[in-house]
């Protein structure tokens, strides 16, 4: 399997495209900065949000039970799923019971995480994603490359081609407005004919048993209001204690995500309308295990704004697909190893630990520290290579003995001069696109010994 490094290398073969990807996402980072700077209380909001999440995670079981009892009282059917398989089975059983073989789905990264679409389709249920970005990657048969902007890796000309093929737009049509209109018209018939609508959940309020779904397109509302059955899937970490807490998160979410003051729609769903069925599926899928990992527990504070991806200099230059996990970028790199340490062992190393992610995070997750911690956990669990292990052993031995280090350094510098081909070759990844530093005549320690007559 290709790892993040190899896939990034492929992504970087087209430098102009990397530039375009980088600049597009940097532009969103700048919009986020502008929006944040409009609020003098921004840092206080982040702190409050972080503390509320901290409190909630510390009392998660109680809040989940409170949410369940309130939701039941509101007339919602509540399901619990320990993992992705259980989640998918629950969705399928609800659909089967009602004889439904076609559904509409608004954006839900949890269903991506559970690979629900593929599961339903293999069981004869058709799924249409109604979020425009999700619809585009669905037509392209690709996973989303970004949690907020699923098709950010695609240029409008490529989307035009896709729509020409699937939606019958004119060949070469790449005007975003024309393409969006085509998607709207296509989705309209879907909304009108689907009897079941599946949605994600941005926030679930324990106090009231209601859920809040944030979209810019109103597609979640459109799906739910026209369907007989509403199925909402949520990770158990989406709980917030009270309705009054919402203001803090809603103010942070869209500003962090896209630089908007608020999403176009922040819709509350509390009780099914007359004749409608409403189902909530509360999914664990590794979350309680992450909660049990003290150094990684804070990752569950995430509200899925994507700000860490937009600011990440590595993400911007490697693309979301190089992470090979539903949630890419810095936050994905600390969530993914919890689910599969072997498969995602490359991700915590796909970072320079620059710390920008931690600074933009609206709930103050110490992402870069967790990346560092995951590296320790992965190496301790043996998820590393023999080359790395031996390299590190040799380095640590050299660093243990100053005289040995001094001698090795002197030898190395001499070799760089006498036999430069030992360093300037294709086997040296530094030299591939960078010159080696010029070795000086003497090291500082040699100079100091001579100049300052150091006796020790």
């Amino acid at each position, binding site marked *: 399997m290709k790892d*993040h*490094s190899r896939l*990034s*290398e492929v*992504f*970087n073969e087209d430098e102009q495209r*990397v530039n375009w990807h980088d600049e597009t996402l*940097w532009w969103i980072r700048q919009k986020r900065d502008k929006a*944040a*700077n409009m*609020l003098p209380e*921004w*840092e206080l909001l982040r702190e409050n949000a972080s503390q509320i999440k901290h409190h909630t995670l510390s009392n998660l079981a109680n809040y989940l039970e409170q949410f369940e009892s309130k939701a039941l009282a509101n007339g919602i059917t509540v399901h619990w799923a320990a993992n992705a398989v259980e989640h998918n089975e629950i969705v399928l059983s609800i659909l089967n019971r009602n004889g439904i073989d076609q559904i509409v789905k608004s954006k839900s990264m949890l269903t991506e995480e559970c690979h629900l679409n593929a599961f339903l389709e293999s069981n004869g249920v058709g799924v249409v994603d109604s979020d425009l970005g999700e619809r585009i990657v669905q037509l392209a048969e690709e996973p989303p490359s970004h949690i907020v902007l699923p098709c950010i890796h695609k240029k409008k000309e490529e989307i035009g081609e896709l729509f020409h093929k699937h939606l019958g737009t004119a060949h070469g049509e790449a005007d975003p407005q024309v393409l969006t209109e085509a998607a709207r018209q296509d989705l309209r018939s879907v909304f009108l004919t689907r009897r079941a609508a599946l949605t994600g959940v941005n926030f679930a309020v324990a106090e009231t048993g209601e859920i809040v779904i944030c979209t810019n397109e109103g597609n979640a509302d459109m799906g739910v209001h026209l369907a007989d059955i509403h199925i909402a899937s949520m990770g158990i970490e989406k709980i917030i204690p009270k309705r009054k807490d919402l203001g803090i998160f809603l103010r942070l979410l869209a500003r962090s995500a896209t630089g908007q003051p608020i999403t176009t729609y922040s819709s509350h769903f509390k009780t099914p309308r007359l004749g409608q069925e409403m189902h909530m599926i509360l999914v664990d899928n590794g979350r309680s295990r992450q909660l049990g990992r003290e150094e990684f527990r804070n990752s569950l504070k995430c509200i899925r704004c994507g700000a860490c991806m937009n600011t990440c*200099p*590595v993400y911007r*230059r490697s693309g979301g697909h190089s992470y090979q996990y539903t949630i890419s970028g810095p936050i994905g790199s600390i969530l993914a190893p919890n689910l599969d340490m072997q498969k995602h062992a490359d991700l915590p*190393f*796909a*970072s*320079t*630990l*620059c*710390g*920008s992610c*931690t*600074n933009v995070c609206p709930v103050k997750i110490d992402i870069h520290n967790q990346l*560092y911690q995951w*590296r*320790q956990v*992965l*190496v*301790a669990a043996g998820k590393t290579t023999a080359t*790395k292990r031996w390299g*590190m*052993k040799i*380095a*640590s*031995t*050299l*660093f*243990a003995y*100053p005289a040995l*280090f001094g001698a090795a*350094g002197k030898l*190395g*510098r001499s070799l760089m001069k006498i036999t430069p081909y030992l360093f300037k070759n294709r086997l040296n*990844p*530094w030299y*591939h*696109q*960078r*010159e080696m*530093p010029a070795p*000086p005549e003497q*090291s*500082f*320690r040699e*100079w100091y010994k001579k100049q*300052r007559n150091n006796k*020790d």
Partner: protein
Amino acid sequence: MMTVGLFVPCYVDQFYPKAAIATLELLEKFNVKVSFPAKQTCCGQPMANSGFSHLTQASDELFTEGFAEFDYIVCPSGSCVLHLKDHLHSVKHPQKAEEIRSKIYELVEFLVDILQVQDLKARFPHKVGVHQSCHGLRGLKLAQMTELVAPGFSKPVHLLNMVDDLEIISLSRKDECCGFGGTFCVTEEAVSVKMGKDRVADHVLNGAEYITGVDLSCLMHMEGILKRQGSMVQIIHIAEILNAN
């Protein structure tokens, strides 16, 4: 008289002795008794950041024994200092290691916060771009970070402003990472180089003759790219500018 132990990181010792000499001379200008303990090598970060923190014990013990006696420890690298502040740990002398963690300073913060330097007899008649190395910036908080909604400041710029005839150029991205990242620079070579190229281009397009900073690791990476491009733009550690006359 205040005693300072000079810690010269392994790669600075071997490849950039001029920066270490400038650091030593600069500190001596301010009536500080500086010593360079011979028994020093590396801060341990290369192992720890690669996930091998369990292999830093020997260098940690060496560091603790070599530097415990000084009032302060000063090092011309933000990244190494941050690592020691966060992770230095000694089994033999836990107390001493603990103390070192709170008395070790990166050169710029030592000049600004401890020595409270107001005046430098330095001259550097060039256009200079300041690279904000991430660990110095976001770890040691040597300057304000663009992500935060907070008043601006910069300790490196505060000192550079005392240098005669020096002009600081402005950048389009003030504090983006250069892509060095320790072993990242070879394990993620493609992205590392692309980040470096982009960072260098920002300085070059804005007219820098020199790129300076508090970390030679970042500068070494950018130097490698500049040289491969055949650029005339040079890298220089901030100590060499502050000590220039």
